[in-house]
């Protein structure tokens, strides 16, 4: 096929096109076209963007020891093994609208003076079931919010349920072993995610506009910043230099 025949119209079609363009209707339609185009753009929904980034925690936060002692030295013979139950940081976007996650029931097991799920991202009115698999009781509560979850002894092998009706970050802690804690982050939008082993995170389908980004690690908000979500935004690099908590609501 020759290229010259590609855009050649049939004589009849050409004649009809020319007559249409010269008609009054065509002129009217051409005049209204920009207004219709603008109206169409306005009425279309905002484009969803992805917010990516990487959270780098300080050495203290990365150590796996939340309550370090005076000394922590290597043995000098065998390399240090990685954490068996890492508790990666969680990135949460607030001040942004989105579909509310569904309320669910989450189960957490305590075994060996630790929990299998250190951090939970739950929807509003979700329920957390805590099962004590240790041979000793654990007195659990949310320090500072005893009205929501008072101090209560969880005997070995028993279960305790706790509902979280209000969005926010909560920490369930054992009175005898403070390192035994469960972070419950109640969200009212789906824009929250746990970082991977390298600290990368991705929050897809975020609407454009300003939002507040919070990083939760080791039972506290360790970083908070305002993010202007827009198309093709660069990946965020979040360095948490210290373990000092950030005042959060």
């Amino acid at each position, binding site marked *: 096929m020759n290229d010259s025949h590609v855009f050649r119209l049939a004589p009849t079609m050409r004649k009809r096109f020319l007559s249409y363009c010269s008609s009054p209707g065509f002129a009217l339609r051409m005049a209204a076209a920009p207004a219709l185009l603008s109206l169409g753009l306005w009425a279309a929904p905002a484009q969803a963007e992805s917010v990516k980034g990487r959270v780098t925690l300080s050495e203290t936060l990365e150590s796996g020891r939340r309550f370090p002692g005076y*000394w922590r030295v290597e*043995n000098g013979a*065998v390399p240090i093994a990685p954490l068996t139950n890492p508790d990666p940081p969680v990135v949460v976007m607030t001040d942004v609208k989105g579909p509310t996650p569904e309320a669910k029931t989450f189960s957490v097991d305590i075994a060996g003076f*630790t929990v299998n799920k250190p951090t939970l991202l739950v929807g509003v009115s979700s329920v957390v079931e805590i099962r004590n698999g240790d*041979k000793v009781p654990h007195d659990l509560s949310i320090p500072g919010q005893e009205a929501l979850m008072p101090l209560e002894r969880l005997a070995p092998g028993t279960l305790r349920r706790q509902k979280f009706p209000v969005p926010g970050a909560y920490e369930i802690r054992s009175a005898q072993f*403070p390192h035994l804690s469960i972070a419950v982050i109640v969200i009212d939008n789906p824009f929250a995610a746990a970082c991977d082993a390298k600290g990368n995170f991705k929050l897809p389908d975020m609407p454009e506009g300003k939002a507040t980004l919070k990083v939760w690690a080791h039972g506290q908000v360790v970083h908070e910043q305002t993010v202007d979500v827009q198309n093709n935004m660069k990946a965020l690099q979040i360095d948490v230099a210290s373990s000092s908590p950030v005042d959060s609501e």
Partner: protein
Amino acid sequence: MFLSKIWFILVALIASVATTVALVAPRSASRQLASAEAQSLDRAQYAAEQQLKNDAIRWIQSVAKLGRDAVIAETLENATRGSGESSVLNETIRGRLGSLVPDLDSRGIRVLAAVDGNGRVVGRIGEGENSRDAELVSGIEVVADALRGYMSDDVWGANGKLMRVAAAPVLSKTKDRVVGAIYVGLDTGDRMVELWRKNLGIDVAVLLGGQVVSSSVPQGALGSLADRVKEHQEEIKGAHRTKAFTLPHGADELLAVAAPFTGQAAAMGAHYVLMLKQTQAGGPIELLSSTTKEDLGWAVFPWLRLGGAVLAIIGIGLFFQRRETEKPLKTLRSDVQRLARGEIQKLDDHQYPGRFGAIARDVNAALERFLHGDGAGDQRKDLSSILGDKGGRSVDLPALPPLGSQASTGGFGPQKTPGGLSGLTPGPSGFSNGPYAPAPNFGPPQGAAPGGLARPAPSGPMPIPGAFPSARLSSPPMPGAPSQTPAGSRPMAPLPAIPSAPQFGVYQPRPANPTGDYAASYPQDATPTPTMPMSTASTGTMPVARGAVPSVHADDSSTANMNNAQSGGDPEEAHIRQVFAEYMAVRAQTGESTKGLTIDKFRERLNENRKAIVAKYNCRSARFAVYVKDGKAAIRATPVKD
């Protein structure tokens, strides 16, 4: 007085400064003491922290050493692999640990446990050693660290007790992997408190969850300790310790520093508090009450310098006082006494410093007023009282009755003797040749006229100006005073003859009296009056200026001598005669009549008064002085005790 005042002001200032220092210094000392105690607590807290660190690394090394034990390593390796009976493994571990660490209590070990590679307790000694359950503790941070290969420490708080924990990994025989861990739990209660109290020399308390779990002081007195520590939470978060704060402890106050434990216990409100009884410096009394014998020892306290300074201060003060007060006062008193005795006529105010000179001038002024009567009657002072005479009292004698009125009855009647008093016999011209030579005190005739007129003799009843030192003639001219007669113009009137000494034969000139009244004062029956030896070369007129009234002093020695001569050696008689003469003179001066006033009546009155005074004041005698009162002549009596 100036130096004394300056010195007293200086001493007062020094005393004020010393008092201020004594009152202020304790406060400053108290602050410095509190600061020093706070620093002491800071050092103690640092030492305690270092001790905790040292203990931690020491126990880490200890458990690491235990982890290198072959039996333990093999047992844990088997347990990790799941080979072998758990009870056997447990017994093996317990036995081995017990053999390696036989006495747990003496070392403060509460628990010593071995954990396999899966985080299960294979065996333990100490607390819970009889538990056969393979408890899973892999989630405990210090154990998890050990299973990863770290050697670390922690502090646990459970069941109201604190426990320091050290853990170390147990490596396989081939040293290529971690097959388990050993951890040790140490007592962090009374044992540690007692040890710290002994080593640091201060009181210690351990808090856990707002409760005092151990203390070297009675815990009942530390009720507010947890609250006080809670108040400093922000400070503790920032600096990992508090500044020194006070803590009530009964009647005393404790100075305390709180610091958190590390590890998990920090999240459970575990703190150790170092306390020191705050020394109350208080005030000077409290400071002095704490003085010891050694503080006042010769080697420490500058007794010599202090004593020397005090003596110097006192000495300088006394020196100034003596120089400016006592000595002038003594001199003034001595002079006043001399003045009272008549040894001097007035005080020399120039020799007294400051106000003593003013006092002397005041005395002189009072004396002048007293003698001259130039003041009002109310302002007139008794000379003796002014001078502070030892006689103590003087008495104003009642005014003698007008002599004129008594003249007719008392024989005081005027006896005019124109040209001279009757009975006066002219003496020989050579007075000096007479048996009555002038007394040495009388002095040479003054104002003798060039013509050689003899001056009138200071006979008793007659105030003879020449009988007194001219310096004493300070009284105004007496109207009735004999006028000055030009030399050689008129011979002296003959003095009355002295019956008792007619052999005198001296010529007694008589002062001229233009009014003629003056002559009346010389009674014809006058008592023997010694005549003054006068030069025959004199004209016989009074060389003394007219009106010069002699300010006769009762104690004047010359007058006394003269009167003694007239009275035949009787001092009382001489005194009476002298007073009589003064009285007559003053009456003439004041314009009062002297008619009818005789020496006998005068003597009678004075003797009566003397007796009354002697009886009243129990004195030996009385002396009389003439003065002017209310414009009239008056006589004052002064008791004489000596």
